[in-house]
C-alpha cells in the first residue's frame, strides 16, 4: 500500500502556507521623469518585487504543494491525464519557433509547414476531409463547430427553422454552453436504460428545427454508441448535422474514426488525446475537422500548399475568426511532435493500452460499475458513500481521485480514466487506494484529506464571502 505526504510550507505570518508574493514584498513605485506628460500616465503602481533567488524559492515551494501527472496517477474521467513527453517542450523552446503571427507567409514557411502537416495528420486520424487548428481549447472548438453548422444551414436557406441543438443529458457541460453561445435552444436527450442514445427518443426529438446533434463516442460512461450509423441516418434524414465531441477519442485511436461513423464535424482535444500538458488548466487546443462540403465554412485563414510553398487562404464562406491569430501554436507544435513520434503503431497501441488499463483497474476495484462494456473509462459507484468524500480520502494514498458525481446516471459516480500511461503496478496501487477507502467509514472519509498541503477546504465560505485578490485579503 502506497502512502504519501505532500510537502507543506507553513508560515505563521501568512496564517497559512507559503506567504503571498504581496506578503513577501510590496513596493509602491511612482515614476518621475517619464517621456509622457503627467496627464497621460498613472500615479504609480504597487506590486511585489522579489530578487531572483527569492522568486525561485517562492515558486519552487508552490510547485511542491501541487500534484501533477509526473507525481502519480491522475485518473480524472473525460480528462485523459496521460504522460506528457518531455522532448516536445524542447521543441517549443526553440528560438526558431518564436515567430510573429503577421510575418509574411514566405518568411514563416517552417511554422506553416507544421500547421499544414498537422491539419493532414488530424484529418487522417479523425477521418475528416479538412481541419482547422485555430480554436484554442476544446470548448472553443465546439463553438467553432456549431458556428460552422449554423453557417451551413444559413447557406442552404434553412437557418430559420433550425434553431435547436440536441445534446445527450450525460454530455460535457461545454456542449450545452457552446450551443447556447451560438444562439441555439438546447434539446436534452435522456439516455436509455443501457446508458446509450435511445433511437426512438432521438427520432422523436429530431425534425425541421434540428441544426445538429452533439455526441461523444464512447460516451461519458465509456460505452460505444453501437447504433452510431442509425443515429447518423436519423439526424441526416432530418436535415441536421452530426457533431463529434473529441474528449473521448483516446479510446478509438486506430480502431474507429468519427468520419467513418457519419460525423460531419468534430473537435480534437489535443491536450487529452495527444499528450500536450494541461498546464494547470490550459493552454490546450481544440482543432476542428469537417467533411468535404463543410470545408468552405472553416475559420480563416487556413494553411494550404501551392507548388513549393505553404500559403494562407480564406475559405470562401468562412465563419471568420475564433481566436485573434492562429490558435495556441506551441501546443500545436507539441501535438505534431507527439503524433509523428507515435505513428500508426503507437497511436493504435495507445487505445489498446488505454482500454486494457481501464478494464484491468475496474476488475481490481471492489465497487459496482453499473454500465458495461466500457472502453477507456468506467464509472464506478461509491454506493452509500459520498463520492466527493471518497475522492478526498483517496488523496491520502498519493493518488489523484477520479471525476466525481458525474455523469449523474450513476449514483455517487466515480468516473475513472487511467489512460495508457499507467503501469500494472501503478494500477494495483490505485485499486488498493479505491478499496481502502471503500473499507473506511463515512466518519473517517468526511475528515479527509490529511496528507495534503491543505486539509478539507471550506467551499461555502469561499463562495459566500469571495476574496479574490491579495488586495481583498488586506481590506
Amino acid at each position, binding site marked *: 500500500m502506497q502512502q504519501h505526504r505532500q510537502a507543506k510550507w507553513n508560515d505563521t505570518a501568512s496564517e497559512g502556507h507559503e506567504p503571498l508574493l504581496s506578503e513577501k514584498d510590496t513596493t509602491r*513605485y511612482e515614476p518621475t521623469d517619464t517621456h509622457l506628460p503627467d496627464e*497621460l500616465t498613472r500615479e504609480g503602481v504597487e506590486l511585489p518585487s522579489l530578487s531572483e533567488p527569492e522568486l525561485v524559492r517562492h515558486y519552487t515551494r508552490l510547485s511542491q504543494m501541487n500534484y501533477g501527472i509526473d507525481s502519480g496517477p491522475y485518473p480524472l474521467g473525460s480528462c485523459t491525464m496521460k504522460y506528457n513527453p518531455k522532448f516536445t517542450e524542447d*521543441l517549443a523552446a526553440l528560438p526558431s519557433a518564436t515567430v510573429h503571427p503577421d510575418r509574411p507567409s514566405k518568411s514563416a514557411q517552417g511554422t506553416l509547414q507544421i500547421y499544414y502537416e498537422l491539419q493532414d495528420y488530424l484529418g487522417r486520424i479523425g477521418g475528416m476531409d479538412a481541419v482547422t487548428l485555430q480554436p484554442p481549447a476544446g470548448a472553443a472548438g465546439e463553438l467553432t463547430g456549431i*458556428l460552422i453548422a449554423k453557417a451551413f444551414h444559413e447557406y442552404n436557406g434553412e437557418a430559420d427553422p433550425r434553431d435547436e441543438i440536441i445534446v445527450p443529458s450525460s454530455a460535457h457541460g461545454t456542449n450545452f454552453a457552446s450551443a447556447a*453561445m451560438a444562439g441555439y435552444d438546447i434539446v436534452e436527450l435522456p439516455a436509455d436504460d443501457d446508458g446509450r442514445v435511445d433511437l426512438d427518443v432521438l427520432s422523436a426529438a429530431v425534425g425541421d428545427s434540428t441544426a445538429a446533434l452533439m455526441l461523444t463516442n464512447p460516451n461519458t460512461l465509456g460505452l460505444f454508441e453501437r447504433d452510431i450509423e442509425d443515429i447518423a441516418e436519423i439526424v441526416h434524414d432530418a436535415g441536421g448535422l452530426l457533431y463529434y465531441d473529441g474528449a473521448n477519442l483516446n479510446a478509438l485511436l486506430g480502431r474507429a474514426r468519427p468520419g467513418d461513423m457519419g460525423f460531419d464535424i468534430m473537435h480534437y482535444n489535443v491536450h487529452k488525446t495527444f499528450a500536450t500538458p494541461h498546464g*494547470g488548466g490550459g493552454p490546450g487546443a481544440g482543432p476542428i475537422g469537417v467533411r468535404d462540403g463543410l470545408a468552405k465554412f472553416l475559420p480563416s485563414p487556413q494553411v494550404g500548399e501551392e507548388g513549393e510553398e505553404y500559403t494562407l487562404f480564406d475559405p470562401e464562406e468562412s465563419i471568420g475568426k475564433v481566436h485573434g491569430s492562429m490558435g495556441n501554436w506551441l501546443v500545436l507544435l507539441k501535438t505534431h511532435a507527439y503524433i509523428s513520434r507515435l505513428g500508426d503503431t503507437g497511436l*493504435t497501441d495507445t487505445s489498446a493500452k488505454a482500454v486494457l488499463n481501464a478494464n484491468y483497474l475496474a476488475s481490481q476495484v471492489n465497487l459496482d460499475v453499473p454500465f458495461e462494456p466500457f472502453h477507456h473509462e468506467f464509472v464506478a459507484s461509491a454506493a452509500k458513500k459520498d463520492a466527493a468524500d471518497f475522492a478526498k480520502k483517496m488523496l491520502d494514498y498519493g493518488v489523484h481521485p477520479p471525476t466525481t458525481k458525474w455523469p449523474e446516471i450513476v449514483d455517487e459516480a466515480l468516473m475513472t480514466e487511467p489512460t495508457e500511461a499507467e*503501469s500494472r503496478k501503478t494500477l494495483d496501487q490505485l485499486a488498493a487506494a479505491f478499496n481502502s477507502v471503500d473499507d473506511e467509514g463515512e466518519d473517517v472519509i468526511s475528515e479527509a484529506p490529511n496528507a495534503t498541503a491543505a486539509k*478539507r477546504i471550506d467551499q461555502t465560505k469561499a463562495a459566500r464571502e469571495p476574496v479574490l485578490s491579495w488586495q*481583498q485579503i488586506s481590506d
Partner: protein
Amino acid sequence: MQDSLEIDDSQATRDRSNDRGSPFAPHDEEDVRLMLDAVGATDVEELFDIPDSVRFDGEFGIEASSEQAVMQRLHRVLGTNDDVTEFLGRGHYSHYVPSVVDHLSLRSEFITSYTQYQPEVSQGFLQVLFEFQSLVSELTGMDVANCSMYDAATALGEAATLADRVREADGSVVLVPDYLRSERRDVLENYTDGSDLSIRELPTEGGMVRPETLRSYLDDDVLLVYVENPTSEGVIEEHLTEIGSIVNEESSLLCVGSDLVALSLLQNPGQFGADIVVGNAGVLGLPNVYGMSIGIFACRDDFLRQIPGRLVGASRDSAGDRTYTLTLQTREQHIRRERATSNICSNQAWVALRTAIHATYLGPDGLTELADRCTRLPARVAAELDEINGVSAPVNDAYHFREFTVAVERDASEVVSDLVGEGFAVHERDDQTLQVCVTETNEHRIDDFIESFREVME
C-alpha cells in the same frame, strides 16, 4: 519540399521503444497477459465493442519515429523560418523573457497538473492564479480579475456578452473604434453571433477617439463602448478621462483594451471610469509565438457573478489555515450548462504562471521603466525614419507606445518585401503605409534597420 509523412534523416536511429507500440505505455508482454487474465479476455481486441461496419484498420499512413528523428526533422523544418528581425506588433509583442520564467514554469508539478478540481492537493497552482488575479487587478485598477481568457480577442468577445447579461442600458450596440484590428472584430462578431448584439464602428481622427465624435455616436442603442490604450497603431489615447465621463453619463459600459506592460504606466482604467478591462497579459511571460497569448478579463465588483471563466478565491481549511480554491463555480459550464456565463473550460493557466513570474521579476520599478522605454523607442525611431527621403513618420501626431505608422512614397508591399530581403519584417497597412514596432528585443538592430530602410527607399 519534404514529403510531409516521410522521416528521411539518415542518421536517425531506430528506437526500440517503438517496437512495443506506444513508447509511453509501460506494459511488457507479461503485463498484458496478466491483465487480460484478470479481466477474462484473451486478446485486447475483445475489449472493443465496436461494430465491424465502422472498424478502422489502423493505417493512417503516419510512420512512427524515434525521439531523435522527430527532433532532427522538426528542428530542420522550423529552421526554414527566415532568420529576420521582427519590427512587428499590432497586438502581439515581444519583451525579453528572463530564463527563470522557463525554469520555474516547466517544473513538472505545475505543467503536468490539471484544473484544480481537488484544491487540497493543488494549493501551489491555486496560489499562483490568486496572485495572478491580484496583479491584474492592481494593473487594471479593477476590483476583480479572472485567472485568464485565451487571448485579447476572445476576452473582448466575452466582455460584450457580459455587458449583454448585466444590462445596465437597453441598447444592443457594441461601439468599436475603426482602429480595432479586423481579427479582433471578427472574433467579437462570432462571440456575439448567438445574441442580439450588433457591432457599430466609431470613426477616429489622428489615430484616436475624439470625445465629440463619440458623443454624436452615443445613443440609447449603445450598450458597450470599446477603446484601446495604446491602440493597435500604437497611439496613446489622450481623452480617456472625458471618454469615461461621456460613456458613464449615457449609462453605457466602457471596456478598455490594453496590456500589462502599458497598464503599468498609462492612465489607470479604474480611475477614468472603465467598467471592464480586457487585453493581452502575454506581453509578460511569452515572446511572439504565432499569436498564442493569454487574455486579461477584469471588471467592477458588481459584475462578479456574471464574470466568464475561472476564479480563485481564498478560504480556510479545517485546520483554520488560509487556503485557495476555485470558487463561484455555479457561473461555469460544468454546473450551469446552457445558462453558464461562458463555455470556457480550459484556459491559459500555465501562461498566467509565466506572466506572474515575469511581472514579479521586474517588480513595479522594472515594469514601469520597461513601459517608459516603450514610449521613448518609437519616438526615436520615428524621428530617424522621418529624415529619410520619401518617408514620413509617425503618421499620427501623438504619443506612441512601442509602435507607430509610417507613410512611404513608394509601394508599401514592395518596401515590405525589400525589407525582408534585408532581414527585417514590418507591417504593410495599405498602399503607402507601414507599421513599425520597437521594443528592447529589437532595439540593438535599430541602426541597421534605419540604414536598410534608407537603402530600400532609394
